[in-house]
């Protein structure tokens, strides 16, 4: 565009003012980039969990957690004893079975890592599988029905299936690694949708438990892990209150004396901790961030108003020479927007690279977070903030040039 040169020259005219205005934009965009990154990151860390509030019950003092399966029923009830006690909305037990499809050769192409669980819980308690699109959900549901009809049926992730060179419908033997001398004879009835569970396997918990019973019947003694098969219990609760009530129920239950158990959740931990910072975060989000945007608009508006007022005569000359009123308006808007977009983009993109690449995150201690990355959005939002605020700040001064009369240019006083 031919007028770009004119816009550049006008910005260069008052270098000091242009630089000060840019510096103001950069500082404010820098601050808002930090605020939005922290808020955005905390949102991501808590949002999924706030909508899907799960607790994990594990052995209290020991890692790995190994509980007797006799705990399962009580824990799935949230250790509720009284009528008024809280029960989970849903629950799920996990027993890990690590095995190999080849008894002697254990490696990448034979390895199996399986959750032994109630098949139907796949659709209600597993992250991501609980929110599938209708198509994949129906496919998975068909496999679950097959597992329920045949307790030796298993679901294998697609990458794992490829690694062991099997397909749906094949029958395989899985030799226990953690469960020594337990051999499961399985039939592959389906796979997981691609993604998070590509390398996992799901086995019906009834089949594992029955295999351990069969071991005892055959050998005349229980399997060494017989009382240690339950690794985790997941419970879903509606609210934080319900969660803490259930936590009390579990802590005070006489059922779980040896070994003792604990309930916790990363997401509730985040949310609970952040509750203490609620006011601070509200102020950042609803007061500081908007105030910065408004300040930015005012800074730009002020600079552009002054620059327009200084140049009314020049703009009258441009009109005399033949510039249309709209072209003058565009020149003013162009100056403001060029300044705003360039300064805003430099600031937020610079912040992104500096914080993420050089200092490795925004050091800001809140709850158990101590460092925040600048979000990818910063690559564009500086330019967007610059555009919006410079447009908002310059539209009135720009429109005010319409009142500049061409006849003024010949008036006595220059």
């Amino acid at each position: 565009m031919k007028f770009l040169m004119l816009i550049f020259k006008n910005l260069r005219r008052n270098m000091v003012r242009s630089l000060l205005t840019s510096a103001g934009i950069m500082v404010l965009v820098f601050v808002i980039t930090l605020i939005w990154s922290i808020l955005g990151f905390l949102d991501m860390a808590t949002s999924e969990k706030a909508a899907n509030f799960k607790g994990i019950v594990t052995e209290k003092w020991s890692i790995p957690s190994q509980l007797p399966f006799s705990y399962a029923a009580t824990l799935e009830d949230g250790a509720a004893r009284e009528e008024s006690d809280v029960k989970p909305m849903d629950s799920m037990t996990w027993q890990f079975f690590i095995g190999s499809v080849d008894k002697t050769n254990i490696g990448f192409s034979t390895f199996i890592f399986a959750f032994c669980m109630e098949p139907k819980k796949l659709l209600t308690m597993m992250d991501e599988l609980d929110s599938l699109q209708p198509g994949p959900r129906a496919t998975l549901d068909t496999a679950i029905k097959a597992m329920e009809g045949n307790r030796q049926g298993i679901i294998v992730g697609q990458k794992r299936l490829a690694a062991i060179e099997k397909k749906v419908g094949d029958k395989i033997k899985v030799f226990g690694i953690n469960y020594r001398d337990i051999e499961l004879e399985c039939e592959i009835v389906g796979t997981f949708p691609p993604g998070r569970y590509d390398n996992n396997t799901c086995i019906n918990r009834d089949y594992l438990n029955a295999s351990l019973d069969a071991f005892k019947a055959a050998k005349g003694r229980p399997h060494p892990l017989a009382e240690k098969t339950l690794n985790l219990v997941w419970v879903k609760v509606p609210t934080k209150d319900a969660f803490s009530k259930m936590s009390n129920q579990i802590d005070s239950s006489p059922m779980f004396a040896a070994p003792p158990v604990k309930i916790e959740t990363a997401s509730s931990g985040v949310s609970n901790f952040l509750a203490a910072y609620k006011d601070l975060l509200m102020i950042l989000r609803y007061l500081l961030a908007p105030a910065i945007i408004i300040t930015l608009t005012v800074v730009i508006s002020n600079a552009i108003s002054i620059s327009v007022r200084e140049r009314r005569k020049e703009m009258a000359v441009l009109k005399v020479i033949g510039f249309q009123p709209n072209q003058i308006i565009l020149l003013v808007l162009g100056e403001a927007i060029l300044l705003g977009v360039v300064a805003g983009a430099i600031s937020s993109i610079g912040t992104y690279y500096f914080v993420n690449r050089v200092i490795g995150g925004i050091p800001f201690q809140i709850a158990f977070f101590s460092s925040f990355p600048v979000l990818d959005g910063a690559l564009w939002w500086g330019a967007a903030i610059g555009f919006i605020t410079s447009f908002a700040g310059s539209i009135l001064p720009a429109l005010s040039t319409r009142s500049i009369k061409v006849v003024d240019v010949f008036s006595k006083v220059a």
Partner: protein
Amino acid sequence: MTEKPIVRVSHVSRYFKRGSERVNVLNDLDLNVPEGQFLALMGPSGSGKTTLLNLIAGLDTPSEGEIWVGDRCVSTMNESQLARWRNEHVGFVFQFYHLLPVLSAYENVELPLLLLPLSAKKRREQAMTALELVGLEDRNSHLPSQLSGGQQQRVGIARAIVTDPTLIVADEPTGDLDAKSAHEILDLLGTLQRSLNKTILMVTHDLRAARRADRIQHLDKGRLVDQPDESLYEAG
């Protein structure tokens, strides 16, 4: 003066509202200017010289009457049409030069061409030709602040002629210059008129400046008079 007039002002009046009062600045005024003529408009301060020049140059619209320049009726055009017409057909020379301070002499001269559908090469040719005509081709990269008043006015004249306009209007073009520079500017206008056959309308209250023109018209009480009271200008 047998040629067809290029500027025709007929029965033009212009009045302004000042509060509830109506001030008649021009009253039923007629003026014809033939193509290629250098006309000086004189008159006491406040007599309406600038008002008349503004009307002819399409910066203002008459309250009554018609103004034609070439084959265009200027008095009925709207603001946007006037802007486009001025760009192509009128060159303006101002008392205070009114160059854009951020642009070089060359860029100031090129400015009116930016509004026309011309290639960068064509613009460059035309702007450099205009600068040569005023004798400032070697100063093309100077900023206005690096030029003398007379040189700035010559850049102003180059900007006025760069679109090869039908008409050049100048309001007190020498009013802010010393006698020597004023003399040079008037020489330049005379040269342009003769060599390029430009029609020039110049407002001045300096009789010596006016005498450089082909014809002098005097404005008094809203009308043109041929024989003025010369004593009005004796100070010169």
